[in-house]
Every structure is written in structure tokens, then in C-alpha cells.
């Protein structure tokens, strides 16, 4: 039995087994980015990977679709060991794993339509009509059907990230990997992008793994969190679980953030209540 397993009955959608990764630094030293981490992630949840910069959270995320190949250990997605697949099999498997990035990474010389259609044209032989219908569907999910013929340069940051989300959703992935998806966005835009992500999780059942250093993002979105420090997994907990004491500084900070947020909400409600009679009088 894996002690990390959160719902022992169902097999996890993603299982990292003792994965490690080292990088050679330019000055010749070796940097251990991830040190033998084992982690299960259950299907249908929103899973947060948090940690300070350099803690290895991004590397860990990128191991899930093997953008970063672990030096040791296994990566199982939906029961398949990705590290043993041929190049071709890996390409096919990656279709089922969507990914979005901090810098959006859209094709600048392609329209919104062409960007979202991109993954659909890579594999298989979908007809033009099928592709068009799917692109429309995905843009409807992110609320951008009117931007079909625009180019990314004509969009705001939030709109660009929405196009990236639509692109990631196009091939019907089971998992959506998010690498600091809101770090380049302002507060307002962040909130609406997070709303979209939550909706995708709830309505389409897509499992979401999100790397972030912003605690309010974790608080607003995640239901389960793993904390990384110096390439090691230090703890994992349900965000709703306030009773179990947190081991890591970041975990405690997150709990405080939650308390603070609750107080703010309460205040806001009280202010609204107090203001009501005056607005009625005016």
C-alpha cells in the first residue's frame, strides 16, 4: 500500500514512483532538482504542487508528460509506464495530457483558430468539419468564440491563457498540467482563469495538476496539495482539512491564508449588511 494514496479504493490516475532528476549546472556542479519523490494523484481532483522557487515543483510536473525524463523511477499515467514507451507511443500518450504554461506559448503567427486546431491536426485523420466543431466547442468553454480569427498579439494576457486552455482541451485530455498558469496575470484575470479551470474540472471531469507559488491560487482552486522543499516531498494534505497540523512552513502559511481569507469574507458580508439600510434610504 502506498501511504500517500488518498483514496485507496480507486487506482490513482497518476503515480510517480521514486522519481529523481539531476541537472548539470553551467559551472559543472550537479543540482538535484527532484530527490526520489513518490506521489499518487487521484482522478477528477485539482491537485496543487507548491514550494519555493527551486524546490523542484516544476520539474516534477514536467515529469508527468515526460518533458523532463526522470533519471530513475517510474511515471505511470492511467496505468501505463511512460518511461518505457517508444517515441511514437509517447507522442500518442501525450495527446491525453494537456498542458498550459506561464508564458502561454501560443503560436504567434497562427490565428486563435489555428492554435486550438494545432493538436487536432497532429494525430489521426480528423475531418475538417470535425476539427472545426471541436475548436468551436473548446473556445466556447473558455468564452472566446468571438476571437476565432484574431492573432495572439491582439489578445490580452488572460485571453491568451484561455486560448492555451482551449488548445490543451481540444484532444479530450484526462489530465491538464498547469505550470504557473496565472503568474503572468493580474489579480482580476487570475480569478477568472481559475474559475474557468474549476469549471473544466467539475463539468468535464478533467484532473488538474497545478504548480504555483501563489498561495491564494491554491486556496481558491485546489482540493489537495503536496508541498515540496529542496526536491523532496515534505507533506500532502486536503486543503479543507484544518484539523491535522501542518508540517511545513508553507503548509502553515497556507492555513493562515485560509483563516485570513475567511475573516475577510466575513467582514465583507458584515459591511454589505451594514450598508444595506443606507442604500435603501438613498
Amino acid at each position, binding site marked *: 500500500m502506498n501511504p500517500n494514496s488518498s483514496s485507496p479504493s480507486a487506482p490513482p490516475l497518476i503515480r510517480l514512483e521514486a522519481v529523481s532528476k539531476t541537472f548539470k549546472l553551467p559551472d559543472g556542479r550537479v543540482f538535484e532538482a527532484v530527490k526520489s519523490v513518490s506521489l499518487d494523484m487521484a482522478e477528477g481532483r485539482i491537485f496543487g504542487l507548491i514550494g519555493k522557487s527551486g524546490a523542484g515543483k516544476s520539474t516534477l510536473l514536467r515529469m508527468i508528460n515526460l518533458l523532463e525524463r526522470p533519471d530513475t523511477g517510474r511515471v505511470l499515467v492511467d496505468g501505463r509506464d511512460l518511461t518505457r514507451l517508444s517515441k511514437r507511443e*509517447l*507522442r500518442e500518450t501525450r495527446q491525453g*495530457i494537456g498542458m498550459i504554461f506561464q508564458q502561454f*506559448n501560443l503560436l504567434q503567427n497562427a490565428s486563435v483558430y489555428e492554435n486550438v486546431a494545432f493538436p487536432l491536426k497532429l494525430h489521426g485523420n480528423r475531418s475538417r468539419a470535425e476539427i472545426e466543431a471541436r475548436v468551436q466547442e473548446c473556445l466556447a468553454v473558455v468564452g472566446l468564440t468571438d476571437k476565432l480569427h484574431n492573432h495572439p*498579439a491582439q489578445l490580452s494576457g488572460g485571453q491568451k491563457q484561455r486560448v492555451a486552455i482551449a488548445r490543451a482541451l481540444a484532444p479530450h485530455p484526462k489530465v491538464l498540467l498547469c505550470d504557473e498558469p496565472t503568474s503572468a496575470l493580474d489579480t482580476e484575470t487570475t480569478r477568472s482563469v481559475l474559475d474557468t479551470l474549476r469549471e473544466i474540472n467539475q463539468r468535464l471531469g478533467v484532473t488538474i495538476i497545478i504548480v504555483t507559488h501563489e498561495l491564494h491560487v491554491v486556496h481558491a482552486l485546489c482540493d489537495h496539495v503536496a508541498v515540496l522543499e529542496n526536491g523532496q516531498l515534505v507533506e500532502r494534505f486536503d486543503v479543507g482539512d484544518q484539523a491535522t497540523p501542518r508540517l511545513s512552513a508553507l503548509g502553515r502559511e497556507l492555513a493562515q491564508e485560509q483563516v485570513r481569507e475567511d475573516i475577510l469574507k466575513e467582514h465583507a458580508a458584515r459591511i454589505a449588511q451594514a450598508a444595506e439600510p443606507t442604500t435603501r434610504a438613498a
Partner: protein
Amino acid sequence: MTMSDNILAILPELWVAIGQTFMMLGIGLAAAILIGGPLGVLLFLLGPGQSLENRPAYLVLSWIVNTVRSFPFIILLVALVPVTRVVVGTSIGPLAASVPLSVAAIPYFARLVEQSIREVPRGVIEAAHAMGASELQIVWRVLVREARSGLILALTVLAVSFLSYSAIAGVVGGGGIGDLAIRYGYYRFQTDVMLLTVALLIVLVQIIQFGGNALAHRLDKR
């Protein structure tokens, strides 16, 4: 003002020369695009941090490209005479001159392509990998597409350089506008012919550069 007798006398030859120049340029640029282009992409992909990273292969290819590029064109022209004879059957005329022109154009363009493609953000290539794109799909649908205005400008630079290279080819009886300039303008001291050919080259360069800039601008949606 009437045209000088010198110019009237070479007028029929001038049309032939312009045709020859375009032929040399056309063959040289075609070779550059068809062979130099893929070579440049390969150089990029073999380079440090890229998907086909292979240091020995990159160094060997890079060394070959540098070596060919280090030949002064006039030396290449002469050194390749035996090869030209085998390929074309003769070592004079515009078709023969197209051989050294192509040999010089291929590594030149390969380097320009490699540089243009380097401008494509890493993250975009990575996103394509994450979506399961193959190397070939990435080359066409990401690298060429994202770098296309840079590639057009690279081709423009190449065309302008090779317009003057094609003029050097006149030295070995290569024909073309430059040949005319040397034979009449230089050897026979017909300054008016010299001025005419130079003016013609200036106009050609302006047209090429203007066309290249306009096309690159139209293709750039960034």
C-alpha cells in the same frame, strides 16, 4: 538626351545578360533553399539544448559550413572548375557559374536559417512537444511558421549578396550583368556602360530588399 552609341551597341547583349543574371540567381537561391534550408534546420536541432542535441554531429556540420564559407568566392569559383565540368559539362557560361554560386549559397543560407529559427521561443517548441508533435511536424508547423518573416529577410540578404557574387562570376566568363560591366565598362573603358550596369544593379538590389521587407512584414503577426 539621346543614348550613347556604346549603350545602343550593347543593348541586345544587355537583355541576354539580365536573363543570365536571373538564371544564376535563381539556381543559386533554389539550391540554398532546398539544401541549405534543411541543413540550417538540422544545425539548429543538433545544437545545444535542442531535441536532437548531438555535440559531435553539430560540431562536424558546423565545421563544414564554416570551411565552405571561409573561401573567398573568387577562389571557390576557380577551385570548383573540375567539379563544374563534371556537373554541367563546361566551366564557362552562366549555368557553369551556377555551380560555385550554389556551393557558396548553401552554407551561407544554412547559417542564416539556423539563426532565424533560434528566435523562436523555447516554450513554443516545448508546448508542441507536450502536445505530441513529431520532429518533422515541429519543423514545419512551429519553426518555419514562427520564423517565417526572419527566413524571408534571410533570403533577401542572400539574394542581395549573390547578385554581387554573380557579377564576380563574370570573371570566368559566367555571363550576366557583372560580366558586361567588366568586358565593356572596365576592359574597354566605356564608362557609360559601366554606369548603366551599376545603376541596373542598384535598382535590382532596391527591388529585392523592398520586396523582401514588404513580404516579411505581411507575414509577421507577432
